């Protein structure tokens, strides 16, 4: 009988020691990696998707017969004031984007639709951007841009964010970019984002870029 009691006690002791490992506390990392990643979808995906569509438009603008393969064209030449082109490709995530020429090397872009950030759900997103085309980079057809942007994204559980640039943000192309679709890696300017829950501002973020890629921007947050 004693033997069995000793064995039972030993088994309980083993179980007890197994159980204690659950007392650990999780990661206490100090980086806002998740918020930064969210911001990158605005700076490095949403904005550049629009810029890429403008550069696509310049390319097809030269070929009158192919202008309408990707765009609905109203007014003809893309660089003539008053001309409006609208993205009509079903496969383009920014279908419905309206691009209007407002002056020499100046356009506005307006988007209102469902847009995904990576593997997020598609949420209603509207963006209004004014663009100024600067000089062409070493890559033919790939330009430097100055933009201003405002937008809003309405997500689930009552969350909304409003993002904007108060001053021009520069999207530049360095010599490291080796092809015309290689993106923009010299970014300067500040993005602001307000996080709202049920109509109330609960947080704000800033994303300051100082002449490097968006990945190197300084992210900060707090009311």
């Amino acid at each position, binding site marked *: *009988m004693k033997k*069995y009691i000793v*064995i*039972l006690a030993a*088994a*309980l002791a*083993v*179980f007890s020691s*197994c*159980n204690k490992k*659950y*007392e*650990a*506390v*999780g*990661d*206490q*990392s*100090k*980086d*806002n*990696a*998740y*918020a930064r*990643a*969210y911001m990158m*979808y605005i700076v490095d995906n949403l904005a550049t998707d629009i810029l890429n569509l403008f550069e696509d438009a310049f390319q097809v603008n030269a070929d009158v017969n192919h202008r309408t393969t990707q765009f609905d064209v109203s007014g003809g030449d893309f660089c003539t004031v008053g001309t409006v082109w609208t993205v009509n490709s079903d496969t383009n995530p920014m279908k419905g984007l309206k691009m209007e020429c407002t002056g020499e090397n100046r356009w506005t872009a307006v988007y209102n639709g469902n847009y995904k*950030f*990576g*593997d*997020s*759900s598609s*949420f209603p997103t509207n963006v209004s951007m004014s663009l100024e085309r600067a000089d062409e980079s070493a890559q033919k057809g790939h330009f430097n841009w100055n933009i201003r942007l405002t937008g809003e994204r309405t*997500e*689930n*559980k009552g*969350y*909304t*964010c409003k993002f904007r640039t108060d001053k021009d943000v520069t999207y530049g192309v360095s010599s490291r970019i080796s092809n015309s679709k290689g993106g923009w890696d010299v970014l300067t300017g500040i993005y602001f984002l307000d*996080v709202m*829950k049920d109509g109330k501002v*609960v*947080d704000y973020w800033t994303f300051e870029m100082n002449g490097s890629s968006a990945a190197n921007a300084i992210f900060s*947050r707090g009311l």
Partner: protein
Amino acid sequence: MKRLAILLSAVALAFGALDASAQETGGPVREKRHEFNLFVGFFGADLTMSAPYTSSVRPELSVLYEPQVQNTVSPTITLGYNFKLLSFLKLGGQFSYSGYYRTTTYLIDNKVTRGERVDYLYALPEVKFCIPGAEHFRLYAKLAAGARFRLQEGDDLIDFAWDVTPIGFEWGGKTVYGNFEVCWGNVVKGARLGIGYRF
């Protein structure tokens, strides 16, 4: 936990074999009246309360700002006692413990987590139906119902709990034996492995 399960079954088998070798062979075996059983249950019932949590974070504000809850569930330990009323019927009770450690993570706040321990104790009177079988291998079924006590800081609770064992096996000797039973209820959803002592 696997090691513990293996240890328990090895102990039961070893002592069962020793005990069996000491018994007289031939003729019906007269079963002892009292029995204690110690079980480890897997897939504790409260596992179902765990929220899904993955390392890949969807870029959505609700994911960043809403708490992400993860429960780490411990196996359930059960101590049971039965008294033989009839050759096929035993009455008794089971006392169980299970618990989990809950971490609440707010990804927007630098992934800081807040830990919270939640413990459950169960006290369930039970009826055990035994099906006569071979001397060293027996089948049974159990029904148990009683109370569950949740011990959580600021949120203690007592409510009803039940546990059904549609089929269980005992193997080993007349005094010491091993158990394996399939069960479903508030205590364990899955299976229990244990050792028993009869006197």
